[in-house]
C-alpha cells in the first residue's frame, strides 16, 4: 500500500487492529502501463525529489524508472485539476485510460498479529548544513545530492559537474561527520555509514575521472564492517585519495572556488581551495518518529530513534512491535537487512500457531496432454508506443505468420493487460496451441505473468518463450525503426525455432524435514535455536565444549549497563528446557550429507555417535580473542587482553589497585597478524576504561588508537570517557607504540603527535585490544562445501542482500563465525539466520524451478567432471548397477548449466535450455 500511513494501533500482541490511511494516486495501478506519455503532456513543472531536487519532472510521474509499483501517480500538491479544477490534459493522452480523478482517500482497519516498524531515517536539518555554506554556495552539496549527480540515471546522466557552472570539478573535498558526532547539532551519535559511502563516492569519481584530486576530511575512519577496511585501503592506494584527520572549521567562497580552513593533526592552521565540497551528511531519526512512536505506542531514545535493549535489539518497548533498519539506530544495508529478517522471525515466533491461516492459495487446472506436432501461437505487443512507436509491429506479426509451425498470430496494445491474457487463453483453446511465444518486454519481469496464464488454462509453463523487443530493441534503437523492425523479426524467428523444441517440464518439489541443526552453543547459536523452536520447529543444538555460552561466559558488563551473566542464565535455561530443543554438549559434527530439506549428520557425543536428520543447518561456530606474540603478551604479567582486564575489573578490590593503564588498540589487527578490523574492540576499551574510572576515579587511562570506531550510539560512551579524563592518543600504523620490560615493571613508549615528541610511561598494566579470530572451521566448511573468506570467516551468499544465507541452499550463518561483531549484532543476526532457516521449514517443501539439469543415464560415463565443477554441490555420482552415474540434486540446482557445457558425452540436459534448443536458436540466427 503506497501513499499510506499508520494512524492508530489498538489491541495487543497477537491481535492488533491497525488503522491505515491511504491517499489516492489518481492513476489506476492495474491499468497504467508506465509508458510516460502523461508526464510528457503535463504542463506543470515539479522538482524531482528522487533526484534530490536537482532535476525537474511533472505532476504525473513515477519516482524513478524501476520504481515499484511500476505505475505512475499524480502529485496532488501540483496538479492543476486537483488544485484549480482546470487542465485534465493527461486524461485523453492516456491510451490505457488509467487516469482517474475520482479516486478517494481510504481508511482501512487491518487485523494483524504483529507490527514491524522500518520507517528508515530522516535528513540532517539545513540549519546544520548551512554552517558549511550549504544553501549559500551552490557547489557545496550533500552526499545524497552527489550520489544523484554521479548516477547514470541522475540529472546530469552521470557526468560529474558543478551545480554552479556545469564545469567538471578538478578538486573535491569530502567533509565527514556533518550532523554526526556533534552535540551542537543535537546528534551526539555516529551515523555509522558515512565513512563507507564517502570512500565509495570518491572511488566512483576517480573511476570517471582519474585526475580529480580528492581530499577526505575526517575525525576517525570508521570502516569497521566485514571487508570494509580492506576496501578503504584499496581505494586509498589505487586512487591516491588524500585522508586528512581534521574537522573543517569554515567554508568560504573565494572567486569560483571554495576555501576550507582547518587545523591539521599537528595543530597547525591550514587553508586550501576546492572546486566542490561534498558534505557527508549523517542519518537523522525519521521526521515523523515522534508521531509514529505515539501511534504505535513505543518509546524512543534521547535521539528519537526507537528505544531497544542491547540483548533485545529488535524488540520495541511494546510487545508484538518490532523494529528493523535505521530507525533502530544508524546502520548500513547489510545490518538493516539482517534486522529485517530477524524482526520477521520475531513476529513469526509469537504468531507461529496462526501461520498460513490468512494466506490465499491458488489452484490450477490439471495439465492437458499435448500433441506431438508443434502448434505455436505468437503474440506481439505494442506496449502503447514503447514498441509500436519504433518497431513496425504489424510487419513483425505478418512475418511471424510465415514461420514454420506458427498457427496463430495476434498483436495487442498491451499484452500484459488482463484482457490480453484472455485473448491468449482463447487462442490456446481455439487453435489448440501447444507452444506460446510472446514478443514484448523482458522475461526477467514478465515471464512469470505469461507462464501463469498458461498454467491457468492447463498448459505446462515450460512451453513458453519470450522475446524481448522493447528493453533490448525498440528502446535502444529508437532512431532506427527499420533496423529495429528487422531485429525484432530475427529475434521472433529465433524464439519460434526454440519454441518448436520446447517440451513440458515437471513442477518439482522436494519435501523438507521440519528440523534444524544449529552448530555452536554461544549466544548466537542459542538465540537461533530458541527462535527456531519458538517458531514451532524441532532443533538440535550442538556445542563442542562442555558448556553452553561461549564468549558470553567471559563478559561481565556491557557498555549500556546490561548484565551478561543474567542473559546467559536466562537463555541457557530456556534453551535447555525448551521441549523442541535438544542440547548436545561435548559433541562434534563428524559428517554432514544431503541437501536442503534432507540433511543427515553424524554427531560424535561422549556416549558414541548418533545420526540425526534435519532440513536446514545454522552455523554459529563463533570466534575467540586472538593470541599474539607481540607487546610482551604472555611474557609480562602486566600485559593483558581486554577480556582479561574485564575479569579483573569484576572485582572492585583489584580494580582500586590499578592506577595507570595504557590500552593499545588494533594490537595485531588491521594489517598486522590480522588484516581486518574486529569492530568491537574500541567499544570494549571504552567500556573497560569507564568501568575502571567508576571504581577508581583517580586512575590514569591512556588509549592509543588508530581510529576510534565507536560507531552508532557507542559514540556517547566515547565522549563520556573523554569527559571523565580518559586520554585518547592517535598513533599511525607505521609508528606503533613499543612495550619494553623494565625490571619487574613495564615501559610503554609512543609518539604523541600533538606534542610532537616521544612519551614514556610506566603503567601498572598494558591492555591489548587483540581482535577476534574465528574458531577452527576448515573441516566443517569442507563438509558443508561452503567457501570461507581469506580470514576463515564464512562467506555469505551476498554481502548486502543475503547476509545470513550461503552459497549452499539450506545453510545459514550468524555471529562471530560470519565476522567479528558486538553482541547485539550477533543476536540480530542469529534471529535473522533462524528466520531464513524457518522459510523452508514452514513451507514443508522446496520448490524447484524447472530449469534444473537432468542426466541421461544411458549416455553418462560417470567421469565426475560435473560433480567437480558444480558450484552448488548440486550434482553427484551414484552407483547404478555397479556403474558410476551422475545424478542431479534438484533441490540444490540453480540451472547454471556448467555441468551440461562440460559433459563430454552430452548426457546432461538443462530444462528450457537444451543443446538442441540453443542450437536451433543459433541456426535461426544464421537465416537472416
Amino acid at each position, binding site marked *: 500500500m503506497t501513499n499510506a500511513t499508520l494512524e492508530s494501533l489498538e489491541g495487543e500482541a497477537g491481535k492488533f487492529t491497525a488503522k491505515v490511511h491511504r491517499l489516492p494516486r489518481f492513476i489506476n495501478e492495474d491499468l497504467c502501463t508506465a509508458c510516460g506519455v502523461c508526464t510528457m503532456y503535463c504542463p506543470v513543472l515539479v522538482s524531482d525529489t528522487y533526484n534530490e531536487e536537482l532535476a525537474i519532472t511533472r505532476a504525473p510521474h513515477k519516482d524513478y524508472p524501476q520504481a515499484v509499483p511500476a505505475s505512475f501517480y499524480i502529485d496532488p500538491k501540483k496538479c492543476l485539476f486537483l488544485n484549480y479544477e482546470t487542465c485534465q490534459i493527461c486524461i485523453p493522452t492516456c491510451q490505457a485510460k488509467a487516469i482517474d480523478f475520482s479516486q478517494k482517500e481510504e481508511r482501512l482497519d487491518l487485523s494483524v498479529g504483529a507490527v514491524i516498524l*522500518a520507517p528508515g531515517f530522516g535528513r540532517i536539518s539545513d540549519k546544520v548544513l548551512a554552517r558549511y555554506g550549504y544553501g549559500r554556495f551552490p557547489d557545496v552539496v550533500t552526499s545524497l545530492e552527489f550520489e544523484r549527480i554521479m548516477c547514470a540515471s541522475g540529472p546530469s546522466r552521470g557526468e560529474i559537474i558543478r551545480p554552479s557552472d556545469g564545469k567538471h570539478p578538478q578538486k573535491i573535498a569530502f567533509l565527514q561527520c556533518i550532523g554526526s558526532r556533534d552535540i551542537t547539532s543535537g546528534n551526539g551519535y555516529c551515523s555509522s555509514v558515512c565513512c563507507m559511502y564517502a570512500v565509495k563516492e570518491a572511488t566512483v569519481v576517480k573511476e570517471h575521472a582519474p585526475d580529480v584530486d580528492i581530499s577526505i576530511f575526517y575525525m576517525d575512519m570508521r570502516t569497521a564492517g566485514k571487508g570494509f577496511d580492506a576496501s578503504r585501503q584499496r581505494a586509498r592506494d589505487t586512487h591516491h585519495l588524500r585522508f586528512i584527520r581534521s574537522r573543517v572549521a569554515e567554508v568560504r567562497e573565494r572567486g569560483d572556488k571554495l576555501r576550507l580552513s582547518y587545523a591539521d593533526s599537528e595543530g597547525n592552521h591550514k587553508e586550501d581551495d576546492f572546486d566542490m565540497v561534498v558534505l557527508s551528511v549523517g542519518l537523522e531519526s525519521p521526521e515523523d518518529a515522534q508521531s509514529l512512536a505515539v501511534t504505535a505506542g513505543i518509546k524512543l531514545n534521547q535521539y528519537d530513534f526507537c528505544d531497544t535493549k542491547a540483548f533485545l535489539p529488535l524488540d520495541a518497548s511494546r510487545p508484538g512491535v518490532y523494529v528493523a*533498519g535505521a530507525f533502530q539506530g544508524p546502520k548500513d544495508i547489510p545490518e538493516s537487512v539482517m534486522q529485517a529478517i530477524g524482526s520477521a522471525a520475531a513476529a513469526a515466533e509469537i504468531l507461529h500457531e496462526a501461520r498460513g491461516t490468512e494466506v490465499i492459495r491458488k489452484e490450477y487446472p490439471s495439465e492437458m496432454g499435448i500433441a506431438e506436432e508443434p502448434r505455436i501461437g505468437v503474440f506481439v505487443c505494442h506496449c502503447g508506443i514503447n514498441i509500436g512507436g519504433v518497431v513496425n509491429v504489424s510487419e513483425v506479426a505478418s512475418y511471424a505468420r510465415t514461420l514454420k509451425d506458427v498457427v496463430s498470430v495476434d498483436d495487442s496494445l498491451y499484452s500484459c493487460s488482463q484482457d490480453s491474457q484472455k485473448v491468449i487463453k482463447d487462442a490456446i483453446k481455439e487453435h489448440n496451441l501447444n507452444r506460446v511465444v510472446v514478443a514484448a518486454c523482458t522475461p526477467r519481469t514478465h515471464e512469470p505473468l505469461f507462464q501463469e496464464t498458461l498454467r491457468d488454462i492447463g498448459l505446462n509453463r515450460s512451453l513458453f518463450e519470450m522475446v524481448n523487443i522493447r528493453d533490448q530493441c525498440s528502446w535502444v534503437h529508437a532512431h532506427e525503426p527499420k533496423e529495429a523492425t528487422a531485429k525484432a523479426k530475427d529475434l521472433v524467428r529465433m524464439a519460434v525455432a526454440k519454441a518448436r523444441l520446447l517440451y513440458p517440464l515437471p513442477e518439482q518439489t522436494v519435501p523438507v524435514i521440519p528440523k534444524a541443526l544449529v552448530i555452536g552453543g554461544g549466544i548466537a547459536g542459542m538465540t537461533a535455536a530458541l527462535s527456531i523452536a519458538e517458531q514451532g520447529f524441532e532443533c538440535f543444538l550442538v556445542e563442542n565444549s562442555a558448556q553452553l555460552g561461549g564468549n558470553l561466559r567471559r563478559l561481565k558488563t556491557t557498555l549500556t549497563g546490561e548484565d551478561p551473566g543474567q542473559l546467559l542464565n536466562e537463555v541457557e535455561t530456556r534453551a535447555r528446557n525448551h521441549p523442541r530443543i535438544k542440547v548436545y554438549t561435548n559433541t562434534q559434527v563428524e559428517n554432514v550429507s544431503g541437501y536442503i530439506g534432507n540433511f543427515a549428520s553424524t554427531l560424535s557425543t561422549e556416549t558414541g555417535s548418533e545420526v540425526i536428520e534435519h532440513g536446514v543447518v545454522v552455523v554459529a561456530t563463533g570466534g575467540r580473542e586472538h593470541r599474539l606474540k607481540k607487546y610482551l603478551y604472555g611474557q609480562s604479567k602486566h600485559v593483558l587482553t581486554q577480556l582479561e582486564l574485564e575479569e579483573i575489573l569484576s572485582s572492585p578490590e583489584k580494580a582500586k589497585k590499578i592506577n595507570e593503564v595504557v590500552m593499545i588498540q588494533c594490537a595485531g589487527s588491521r594489517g598486522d597478524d590480522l588484516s581486518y578490523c574486529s569492530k568491537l574492540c574500541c567499544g570494549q576499551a571504552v567500556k573497560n576504561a569507564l568501568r575502571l574510572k567508576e571504581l577508581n576515579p583517580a586512575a590514569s587511562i591512556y588509549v592509543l588508537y588508530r581510529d576510534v570506531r565507536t560507531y552508532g550510539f557507542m559514540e556517547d560512551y566515547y565522549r563520556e570517557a573523554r569527559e571523565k579524563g580518559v586520554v585518547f592518543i592517535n598513533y599511525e600504523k607505521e609508528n606503533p607504540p613499543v612495550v619494553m620490560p623494565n625490571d619487574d615493571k613495564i615501559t610503554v613508549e609512543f609518539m604523541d603527535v600533538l606534542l610532537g615528541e616521544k612519551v614514556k610511561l610506566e603503567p601498572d598494566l598494558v591492555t591489548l585490544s587483540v581482535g577476534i579470530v574465528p574458531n577452527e572451521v576448515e573441516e566443517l566448511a569442507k563438509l558443508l562445501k561452503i567457501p570461507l573468506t581469506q580470514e576463515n570467516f564464512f562467506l555469505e551468499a551476498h554481502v548486502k542482500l543475503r547476509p545470513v544465507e550461503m552459497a549452499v541452499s539450506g545453510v545459514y550463518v550468524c555471529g562471530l563465525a560470519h565476522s567479528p561483531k558486538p553482541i547485539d549484532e550477533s543476536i540480530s543476526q542469529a534471529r535473522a539466520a533462524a528466520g531464513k532457516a524457518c522459510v523452508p521449514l514452514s513451507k514443508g517443501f522446496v520448490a524447484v524451478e524447472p530449469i534444473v539439469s537432468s542426466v541421461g543415464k544411458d549416455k553418462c560415463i560417470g567421469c565426475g567432471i560435473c560433480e567437480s565443477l558444480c558450484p552448488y554441490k548440486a550434482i553427484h555420482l551414484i552407483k547404478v548397477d555397479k556403474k558410476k552415474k551422475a545424478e542431479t540434486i534438484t533441490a540444490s540446482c540453480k540451472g547454471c548449466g556448467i555441468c551440461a557445457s562440460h559433459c563430454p558425452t552430452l548426457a546432461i540436459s538443462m530444462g528450457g535450455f537444451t543443446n538442441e534448443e540453443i542450437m536451433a536458436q543459433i541456426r535461426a540466427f544464421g537465416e537472416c
Partner: protein
Amino acid sequence: MGREHGAKSGAVLVVGGGVAGVQAALDLAEMGFHVYLVEKSASIGGAMARLDKTFPTNDCAL
C-alpha cells in the same frame, strides 16, 4: 476474516517500504504470513533506491 474469536492473527503489518521493510515483508510472506506493507511515499525502495552504487563492491543499488 472467518477466524474464531480470540485466536491470533496470521497477518503482520510492516510500516516502511525501504530495504528493511521490503525484506521483512518478503520473508514473512515466505514463512506463510499475510503481510500488509505500508509505505508513505508513492513507491517502495526507500533510500537505497537513490544510491548510485553500494560500498564496498560498487554493485548497482537498484
